[in-house]
Every structure is written in structure tokens, then in C-alpha cells.
């Protein structure tokens, strides 16, 4: 460790200051949401900016946690996230592994993956397929149409390419078949990759609202994001130029909106720290190897 000069220290302090400011801009919305969600409606409308509730009021949370729809949608989303991520990882890793080995037709598949990566079908063709396969009104419509993300597939294939073929050969000599090689050798070596992509997939399942809205007509099957959007967007009536100010139902108070946002974000937020160490390794996948 070399001797720290004054300029070094100045740079450190500046660094810390800048990073603190950036970190705060990220944290600020959360603090605001947190504070408003625990404030009373009158306190909210009286002050310009709340960063800490004056008086702790839990009305908003009681209101939400009593509502059946919110809790039910949390279960739906939990299911979609767990089952969806499982399907994603299974299909993606299997396909990526297969494409990383010399197989017949591999090039063509690779081309098609790349093709769907560059040219995604729009909303309506996808809707037609979901409808034709009878998935409308089933939670699987949130999982199957997005079973593989082509970008993730390409990166994962790149990762598998770095696993030397000699390992395969050694395994074959020991009498392992293809599936055994995949499950007992390749996958255990790929934990960082699985953790990273699992997180990507899980977060995207958790945050997805549009598919739910499009494919599910039954509000009882809605995922949390659709319900959340319902709570928050209804509170912000479209102040279009036509000036359509008259609503059938008055918007829910802002405090309820904020509480809902917090409750809908918390569960997925909690997962981050547990995957942190894999994640840091995982996102470097496909870059230069030492």
C-alpha cells in the first residue's frame, strides 16, 4: 500500500460525495414513498414534501392488507415468478447448452434465436398465438410465451462455450450419458450463471403487468402489478385536453397508492441480497476470462 497524499484524500472525499448524491437520488423515491405511505391524507396534502411521517398512521396498510384482491394477486405473482423462473432456467439452459455443443442443425437454430432477438413479434401476433393455444385466462399465458429470452440464451450459450469439451469427453469415458453430463457436471459448474439469469427472469416476471392485462380477463387471476397499476393509475385520471374530469369512482388517496407500491416492491427487493454474490459473478459472464 502506497503512501496516501493529500490529493488522494481529496479525490476520495469527492468520490464519496458524488456517490452519496447519486445513491440518494436512487433512494429518495423510496424514502418519499415510505414516508407518504405512513402519513395521514391531510398531512400529505398540507405539506409540499414529506421525508419522514410526522405521525405514524397505518390506515393505508390496513386498507390494503384487508383487501382480498391485493393478497390474492401476491400469491398469483409468487406462483408465476417461481414457476416461470423454473421454466425459464430449464428451457434456456438446456437450449443454450445444446447450442454450445457441435450438433446438427445448430447453426440454423442459432440463426433463428438471433432472428427473434432482433425482430420480436408485436403485441397482436403474440395475442393471436396465445389465443389459438387456448392460454387466454390461464396464468400459464404469463409464463409460456416468455419461456426463453433470446438475449439471455445467447449469453448463456457463450458461458457454456467456455466449459472445455475435455470435461465432456472425460465424463463419456466414465460412462455418463448426455443428460447425466448436463445435470451432474455442466449445471453444477454453472451456478453463477443460473443465479444471475434466474434473477433477471424472476424480476421480469415480478414486474410484468402487460401480459396479465392482455391475456387475463378474470380479475381473480391478476398478478400484483396489474392490481398495483389499478390502484395507482386510477388515482391519476387522464387529464387529457378534452378535460374528462368526471369519474365514477373517486381515486384512492395517495397514501394508499404509496403503501401499495411499497408492498408490491418489497418481496422482490428482499431476494437481491441473497443472490448478490452470485450475481456479481454472473453479470460478468461472457466477458474476458482470466
Amino acid at each position, binding site marked *: 500500500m502506497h503512501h496516501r497524499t493529500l490529493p488522494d484524500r481529496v479525490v476520495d472525499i469527492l468520490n464519496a460525495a458524488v456517490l452519496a448524491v447519486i445513491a440518494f437520488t436512487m433512494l429518495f423515491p423510496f424514502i418519499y414513498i415510505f414516508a407518504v405511505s405512513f402519513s395521514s391524507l391531510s398531512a400529505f396534502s398540507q405539506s409540499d414534501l414529506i421525508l419522514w411521517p410526522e405521525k405514524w398512521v397505518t390506515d393505508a396498510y390496513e386498507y390494503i392488507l384487508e383487501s382480498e384482491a391485493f393478497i390474492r394477486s401476491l400469491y398469483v405473482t409468487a406462483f408465476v415468478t417461481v414457476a416461470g423462473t423454473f421454466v425459464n432456467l430449464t428451457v434456456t439452459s438446456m437450449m443454450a447448452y445444446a447450442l454450445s455443443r457441435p450438433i446438427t442443425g445448430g447453426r440454423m437454430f442459432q440463426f433463428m434465436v438471433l432472428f427473434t432477438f432482433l425482430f420480436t413479434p408485436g*403485441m397482436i401476433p403474440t395475442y393471436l398465438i396465445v389465443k*389459438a393455444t387456448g392460454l387466454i385466462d390461464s396464468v400459464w399465458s404469463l409464463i409460456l410465451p416468455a419461456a426463453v429470452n433470446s438475449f439471455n440464451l445467447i449469453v448463456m450459450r457463450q458461458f457454456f462455450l467456455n466449459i472445455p469439451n475435455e470435461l465432456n469427453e472425460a465424463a463419456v469415458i466414465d460412462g455418463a450419458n448426455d443428460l447425466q453430463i448436463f445435470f451432474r457436471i455442466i449445471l453444477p459448474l454453472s451456478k453463477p450463471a443460473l443465479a444471475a439469469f434466474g434473477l433477471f427472469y424472476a424480476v421480469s416476471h415480478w414486474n410484468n403487468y402487460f401480459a396479465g392485462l392482455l391475456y387475463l380477463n378474470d380479475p381473480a387471476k391478476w398478478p400484483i402489478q396489474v392490481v398495483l397499476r389499478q390502484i395507482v393509475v386510477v388515482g*391519476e385520471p387522464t387529464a387529457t385536453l378534452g378535460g374528462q374530469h368526471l369519474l365514477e369512482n373517486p381515486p384512492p388517496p395517495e397514501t394508499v397508492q404509496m403503501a401499495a407500491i411499497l408492498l408490491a416492491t418489497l418481496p422482490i427487493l428482499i431476494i437481491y441480497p441473497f443472490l448478490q454474490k452470485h450475481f456479481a459473478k454472473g453479470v460478468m459472464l461472457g466477458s474476458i476470462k482470466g
Partner: protein
Amino acid sequence: MKFKRFMTAGLTLCLAASVAGCSDNGEKSAENGKMTITAMKYIYGDPPPIDGPGLKKINEKFKVDYQPRFIPEADYDEKLTAVMASGDVPDIVGFKGFGVNEMKFYTWAKQGAFLPLDEYIKDYPTFKMVPDYAWDAMKVDGKIYGIPEYSPVSEVTPVIRKDWLDKLGLKMPTNYEELKKVAIAFTKQDPDGNGKDDTYGIAMGQNIDPDYNMGAYWDYTAWYHKNEQGRYIPGIISDARKQLIQFYADLYKEGALTRDFALMSWGDVNSKEFYAGKAGIFIAAPQGMSEPYMQSLLQVHPEAELVPIPPFQAPDGSKGFRARKPYFGMTALSAKLADQPEKVKRILEMIDFGRKFYPWEERTPDNKDFDWLWGHQGEGYVMKGGKPVAQKPESQPRTYLPDKKGWAPSLEANRYSMEYNVPQLANLTRQLEQMHVQTKHYFNPVNGIIPEIEQQKGEELRQFLINEQTKMIVGQRPIDEWDQMVQEFLNKGGAQWIKEMNEAIQAGNRQGFWK
């Protein structure tokens, strides 16, 4: 080559699957001899469960298998587009009477997606009550494609804090000069008497919204004024509008208009400005007012009293506000029903039933039809103080009906003020109702006229004018450049817009009128 074959096979498979998917729908009505009726409509608030007791009651009464789907209004356009594009048009499609959704109604009607209803409209009691100018707005190429949903004539109009007027010893303003003085007094003379400089005149949000027109003469959405060639022009480029923008600019300079209005959302104007007791002038209507908002104002200022500002006498002698569009939305039927007249009749019966208007005296459990619509006393509603109070929306058949707004014979028949439990709000709405009953309204000649240029450029053109006018209010652009701005607007396509609108007005043989 191999690749090509693969792609072809894949495509064929997809196509086959989608064709199969389409064909098994729509015609499975034979089950139990019941008609299957599908419907799609937007909903404000939460959609009801898809198998509520209210729905079962409808199925029993009308002997149908009714399958309505209610989509949150914010996402309705996208969802409906996907469903319509899939070729599986629901039997009943509900539309909003404004914005993109309204345009889609006319577009799809033109493309032949819906059933012309002209031959049916004389057969049902609630359809007969619809005035001709409302049917006119439902027409595409001369045919009626929608059933208008009831909307009262009473538009939102300016209201004022009477307690503040009284406190400062001011009179109710009768022209813009007086209104300006009042707004400035609200800003500088501490009308709430708390010794702090925390009040101002007029609450406003982004897009110069709400519109403080004191009559159709100043209304920016009204096609009221005419140019030298005798063509209607949109209010937003009229001299009356220029005068109004000057008025806003003067107030802004005095701090009597919401300071950062250009960036303020409509929700914030309500909750953080007017109903937080900061501003003295806002807008209201007899219908659709929010009790929680009013309560939050009363928490800060228990003595708050809101009263309507009556319309001003315009320079041309007219006096009165613009009437709201005569439809809140519209209900269309699928063109596929053309060869199923029995089904059409059953559907229209259902629609008609939901549209029957009951005066307050008849909204009781003794009224069988009403009791059924509201899901029976004790189940769907309870009587409180002589008024029905909805309990479980899913138990009420009306929740599931495509059109549940009673078509009132007149504005006063509604007696909207009875709906409110906050006395101050009931008071305000009663006065608003009186004002609307006593004054005339201007009926816009452009309702339901959406020429192609409106769809392509209407929004962009309006936004351009709103942006320039916002600049004029805050002083970034001098108001002397008004004519220049109008010219820019005309050059950007405004001239074409005015031309096409006027052609359509003439083709429909319409004109603006007072009533």
C-alpha cells in the same frame, strides 16, 4: 434450403392453429338452449369477479349465457385493439365518449365491424328518449352504429369560495375584470385570515386545465365562433380565447394563478392545491364530485363554502355554458349479429333495461325492477335515510350490464345533489343544478365528427396551441404574437382541419345551437 422448409412448416402450423382457434368461438350458443352473449367494456375502478351473483341474476332473467369482460380503463385501448384484431369481435363493445377510444369507435364502424342499429332505435323506450343530436353523433356515413350512454348537459364550470368572498367583503364577479380583482384579492388579502401568505386565486394544472371559460363564447373546445368565410373555428384560436389567455397571464404575474401549473398533474391540482385550501377558485359539476376531496378541504377550512360562478354576459350578448357531449360513451354491437335478429333483440332488451331511469322516489325496494337491478335489498344494497346505498357491486346485476346509466328525461330529474352525504357538497351541487337548469347551453356542432386529419394530427395541433399559450401565460412569448401563432397553427395543418370539420358539419346538416 433446409431452413426455408422449416420456416414454411412452422408458419403453416401457426396459421392453422389460429384459424382453428377462431372458428370454435362465437357459435357455441346451443348449450342449454341459452344464447351466449359476449361483451367487453372499460371500467373505472375494480372489475367485478367474472361469476358474481349479479351476473347469475341476469342470466336467469334474460335466459342467456352472458359473458361480460370489464377492462381497467387505462389499458382498455390496447386490450380492445388486440381483441378486435384477433377477429373475435365481442357481441357487445362499450366505448368511451372521448379520446382515442372514441376515435376507434368511428374507425371500426367505418370498417364495418359493427351492426347498423337504425331499424331498432324506435322499438325501445329508453332509445326513444335520446334526442336527435345525440343520434347524429352516433352516425358513420349516415347510419347509426352506437347507442349513446347518458350524460347530463351540465359541464364542469367555475366555482368560488364564498366564505372568502364574504370575509373580504367582495361581490360575486360578473365579468372577467371583476373576476381578476377577486383572484388578486384572494392572493394578497389573506382570505383565510391565518396571517400567512399562503392563498391565491385560481387553481390550474398542466395543459391550461381546467378551462375557466365563463360561457361557451370563451370555451376552447367549443366550435362557436366563425371566420370571415362563415366557417366554424375551434375556440382555442378565437379572439375570446386570446382574451382569456391575457387574463391568465395577468393573474400569473400577480401570483394569483398556480405557480408551477405547467408541470402540475390533474391529481395534484385537486389534492395539493384546491382541496388543500390554497386556492379560492376551481371547477365543479353537479355529477361526479369526490366526497373524500371535499372532506379534506373541510378538514383544513371547516367554514369553506363553495358556490358556482354564474356565466358572464359575452360581448355578442350570449350567456351560458357549453353543453357536455350528449353521450358519456357508446355501446356498439358486432356486425356478425346481422343474421341473428333474435339475439340482437335480446341484447337490446338487456341494454334497454339497464338504461331505465328511476326518480329518487322510485329507487326503493318496493320498485321491483329497481330492486332487481340493484341486487335486492340487504344483498346488493341497503336503504339508509331513504336512499339506496350500494353494498356489494358483484351482487348487483347493473354492475354487469353494458349500459347502466339511467336516461333522465331532463337534467333536473337527476337531482344529483341527493347523492352526496357531505352537506357542503350537496349544497354546492344543488346550486350548480339550479344554475344549469336556469341558463341556456350551447350545443357544439362537432360532437362525433372525427375526420381523418383529426385522428392523425388533431392531438398534435391542439398540443402545439396549448404549449404556445402556456408560454404566453408565463411570459415566455408575448401575447402580441397571437396572430402569428394562429398562422403557424393554420400552416401546420390547422387550415385543413378546419376545412374538414366544416365539411363534415355541413354534410351532417348540423349547426351549433342554444337551448
